[in-house]
């Protein structure tokens, strides 16, 4: 098993930043300040996260785990809603419920059923929730973006169909299906290249920490399937239930 990373040796990695800065200077890319600020922010944020996680891991308590899950779920919901302020209240509520319920349900299934562990074990719940909820957020963000762009691009077609007496459901459903496909495909495509083009981050991390490759692979396969499932479910719930809030009882569009 590799030895624990020495902090003084670790700081040497920052030398590589000089390489980035040198390339930028050579190519006259005026982003040197951004590289430095981004590196400092990353270091500070991860150090802070490390301190919090150390505190929680040393004092494992269901309340700490729950609080952490509540914070990341709340933050995820805020990220999505801040980009879609114009949505009606019911659609916003559907986003909140879809993200939190699908994220937590898949997390619980993975920890309790697949790994056979305690849901409140912070060493599992915290890192895995980040991966699962984080991917659910990316999926919902991509799905919502695609759906809104389609609504805008096909506005004339939508209005024409509604004028003709086509139900809003039949008019908008193809756009929903298209958005779900667009949001889900990247995860599925990632699966096809996995293990050939690159070794995934979680697997690499586990092997660096001393895990056997076969163990790392089993974890990786199971987490990727869990990620694909949460992405698909969260986007489906958000759009499938959300789009039904876009018309009233007179079948008039509210957008």
């Amino acid at each position: 098993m590799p030895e624990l990373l020495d902090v003084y040796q670790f700081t040497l990695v920052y030398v590589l930043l000089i390489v980035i800065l040198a390339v930028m200077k050579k190519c006259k890319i005026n982003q040197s300040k951004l590289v430095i600020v981004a590196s400092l922010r990353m270091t500070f944020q991860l150090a802070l996260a490390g301190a919090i996680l150390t505190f929680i891991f040393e004092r494992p308590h269901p309340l700490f785990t729950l609080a952490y899950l509540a914070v990341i779920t709340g933050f995820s919901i805020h990220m999505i809603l801040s980009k879609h302020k114009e949505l009606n209240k019911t659609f916003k509520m559907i986003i909140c419920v879809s993200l939190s319920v699908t994220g937590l349900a898949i997390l619980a299934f993975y920890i309790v059923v697949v790994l056979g562990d305690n849901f409140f074990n912070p060493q599992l719940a915290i890192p895995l929730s980040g991966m699962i909820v984080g991917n659910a957020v990316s999926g919902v963000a991509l799905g919502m973006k695609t759906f809104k762009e389609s609504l805008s691009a096909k506005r004339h077609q939508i209005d024409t169909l509604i004028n003709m007496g086509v139900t809003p459901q039949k008019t908008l459903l193809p756009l929903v299906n298209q958005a779900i496909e667009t949001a889900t495909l990247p995860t599925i495509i990632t699966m096809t290249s996995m293990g050939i083009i690159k070794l995934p981050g979680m697997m690499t991390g586990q092997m660096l920490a001393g895990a056997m490759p076969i163990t790392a692979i089993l974890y990786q396969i199971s987490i990727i399937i869990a990620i694909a499932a949460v992405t698909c479910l969260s986007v489906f719930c958000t759009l499938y239930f959300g789009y039904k809030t876009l018309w009233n009882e007179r079948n008039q569009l509210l957008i």
Partner: protein
Amino acid sequence: MALFKLENVAFKGIIQYPNFEIKEKAATFITGESGVGKSTLLKLLNGVLTPTEGHVYWVEKKLTDVDSIVLRRKVLLVSQSAVLFDEHTIEENFKLFFDYRDQAAPSSEEMTHFLAMCSIVMPLDARVYELSGGEKQRVFVAIHLALGFDALLMDEPTSALDEKNGFAMLRNIKAYCKEQGKSLVIVSHDKEIVENFADDVIVLGGEA
């Protein structure tokens, strides 16, 4: 019996309509300056919009009491800009719109008949992206005619057409509606068209 009757209708505090009636089985033209609410009126008549004040009656029934989908299929609104599925043929466009309405597509003969009514004489397998703006507009109208209706609402139907094609299309549509006992409500700026085809004219927002 009046086809439509407007009673103290206003929309969003911007447009206030006078009380008037639109006759059944007639060609009624709506005219008036831009911004007086002509296009909005058509949407209020086929229930895509609901007045914020007052009531619209359709053959003596309050529009709000009629099933909105049934209403829109009987009072069919042809919007000003033609919307077709560009990558498909004319025939496929008929089929796609009929499929959206869960209706069986018309036969090739019926399609050709309605296209001819709109002065379109070209093969059904012609790709829509190859058509000119005016041809697209007429194919779009032909699809609406084929869908069937009790009343046809048309918003500036000749705006993309030259005078000859515009006149020919309206002449045929009016004759078809008269023969079938259907009503026609047309928004138009074109005085010559109004003079030639109107049975009745409603001027919104002041003088004719």
